[in-house]
């Protein structure tokens, strides 16, 4: 929508800037706070500008003694990244195949299958967390990457979204491919996946963030500090034993925790834009 009214333009810009500032303020506060010494943080209100201790604070986190967590921030980041990547890639792989089967193959009970998948949308992780824990524990997957990833890997949401996209693919395209001698795998690889590139990039970002932000599940199944994720560690830092919260550590960890998701978004953004420009319809 574009109205030729300069006043309106300026007003909407002002609103936009205001909203951006509101969103950025906490991030800014965290960032500035992470550059002060604990003493400064306890003696004054939240600082709006950088302090002197930034370098030391961050190096301290990488040294391997984060507030008594028994591990360094790098391990936390790697754990989180592995978990989030595993969940995102796994979810996409499974949903692509599930949606492909549901849309393009006529097998008995395929509607039933779809609805079974669909109703699991209504079950959040928390509802099934106890039985899942039981299963994972029995399989001996506590304190392992497999245990972190596998239970979260099925996605009704992604299956549903991909199904909706596949349904928009003209049947003639499928038939043309059949006549051109493309079997089911070729069709998936040569036609369906390239056509859903944009959707997959978007799903990947959403699923990566979902995996990155998992809290309850990793908290439950990891005791070993080697498998601790960064989101869980933030909460641990807040409940430190001696009662004094190491705010400089918390904020610096939080800032670091934002970096991988931002990197993923920036990386995938290229594909959305390219996909949108390239797309046929």
């Amino acid at each position, binding site marked *: 929508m574009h109205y030729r009214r300069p006043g309106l333009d300026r007003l909407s810009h002002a609103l936009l800037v205001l909203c951006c500032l509101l969103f950025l303020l906490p991030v800014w506060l965290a960032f500035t706070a992470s550059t002060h010494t604990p003493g400064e943080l306890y003696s004054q209100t939240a600082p709006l500008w950088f302090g002197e201790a930034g370098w030391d604070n961050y190096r301290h986190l990488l040294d391997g003694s984060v507030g008594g967590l028994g591990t360094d921030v790098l391990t936390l980041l790697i754990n989180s990244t592995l978990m989030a990547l595993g969940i995102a890639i796994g979810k996409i792989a499974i949903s692509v195949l599930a949606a492909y089967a549901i849309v393009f193959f006529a097998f008995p009970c395929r509607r039933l299958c779809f609805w079974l998948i669909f109703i699991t949308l209504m079950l959040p992780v928390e509802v099934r967390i106890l039985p899942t824990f039981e299963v994972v524990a029995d399989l001996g997957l506590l304190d392992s990457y497999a245990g972190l990833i596998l239970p979260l890997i099925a996605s009704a949401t992604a299956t549903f979204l991909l199904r909706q996209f596949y349904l928009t693919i003209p049947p*003639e395209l499928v038939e043309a*491919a059949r*006549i051109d001698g493309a079997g089911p795998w070729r069709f998936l690889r040569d036609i369906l996946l390239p*056509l859903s590139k944009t959707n997959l990039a978007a799903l990947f970002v959403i699923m990566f963030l979902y995996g990155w932000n998992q809290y309850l599940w990793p908290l439950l199944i990891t005791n070993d500090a080697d498998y601790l994720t960064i989101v869980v560690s933030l909460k641990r830092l807040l409940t430190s034993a001696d009662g004094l919260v190491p705010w400089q550590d918390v904020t610096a960890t939080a800032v670091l925790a934002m970096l991988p998701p931002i990197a993923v978004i920036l990386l995938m953004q290229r594909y959305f834009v390219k996909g949108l420009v390239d*797309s*046929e319809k």
Partner: protein
Amino acid sequence: MATLRLNGIRKRYPNGITALHDIDLDVVDGELIVVVGPSGCGKSTLLRTLAGLEAISDGELTINGRRVNELEPAERDIAMVFQNYALYPHMSVAGNMGYALKNRGMPKDEIRRRVAATAELLGLSELLERRPRQLSGGQRQRVAMGRAIVREPQVFLFDEPLSNLDAKLRVQMRLEIRRLQKRLGVTSVYVTHDQVEAMTLADRLVVMNAGRVEQCGTPMALYEQPATLFVASFLGSPAMNFLPVTVHRDGVVLPNGTQLALALPVAMPEGRVTNLGVRPEHLVEAASRPDTAAVLDVTVEMLEPLGADMLAYTRLSGLEEWLVVRLDGAHAAHEGQRLSLTFSLADCHVFDADGRRVSMTEGAAAKAQACQ
């Protein structure tokens, strides 16, 4: 090079609709068969069963004498051009054209060579790197043709390939398809609901109605000797005029009671209701035929000047439909004018009450059976 034989092909969809009833057809090598018929008569279904996209419920389909009922589309060695082209949007023109060859495991050089040769033939050489969305409708159509040609298949199948083009381009592509088909000599089945396209393209024409073949033969044979009322009304534009008449002792009686002294070509019992079909171009002014006995007095209600011709929509009392007459373009007719029209017996087609032709000559009867 291929012959195609359909033997009692029947198609029943899972929902119980029988879209094809016992279709028999022999397509000889290099022939261009056009299947024409109104919407929903089963043309696409027929083509899709030939392609292998729909399973054949009953009957046998052979290509070069080999039964192909159970073969996958890719194994039948056919190529199909779709109405909406169905180009792969994410592949370049060259990619689209070469995809089938790639799936066959043909070496890259060979693919490139064949794609280039086909592109040359169709005037697509400049466009090989473009994506389908960067092409005009006509160019897309060409790419779709190229995708079919490059495979050098046994049979081409076309499902209304020109219906998304504008009128001028349609005429141009029609000529081009005809030229290419003759040049490549590939047996083809072409589906359309446009009867002009059908008449101009076909070596032989198959007119379908409600899942059955009404008649099959050369375009002129069908035009001159339509076997049924349906074929007669379907071919020709404007359509044939029909006069419902009752057989009388010395001729026929029109609904308004006018007697026409016509000796029908076949003896029919008095009182039998039949349909007389006369094409618009065969109705002439009675003044030019002083010897005629069959005169129709009509009133001109509307005129459509087409340049060379003028179509007059006239009213014959007692008849619900217009009587359409093709007059000379320079004719000085005006709306409301009264005309006396006549026709010669040789130009009129007689159909009995259930729509079968009764005035069929022996030769035409034999030709109509030529599908089998």
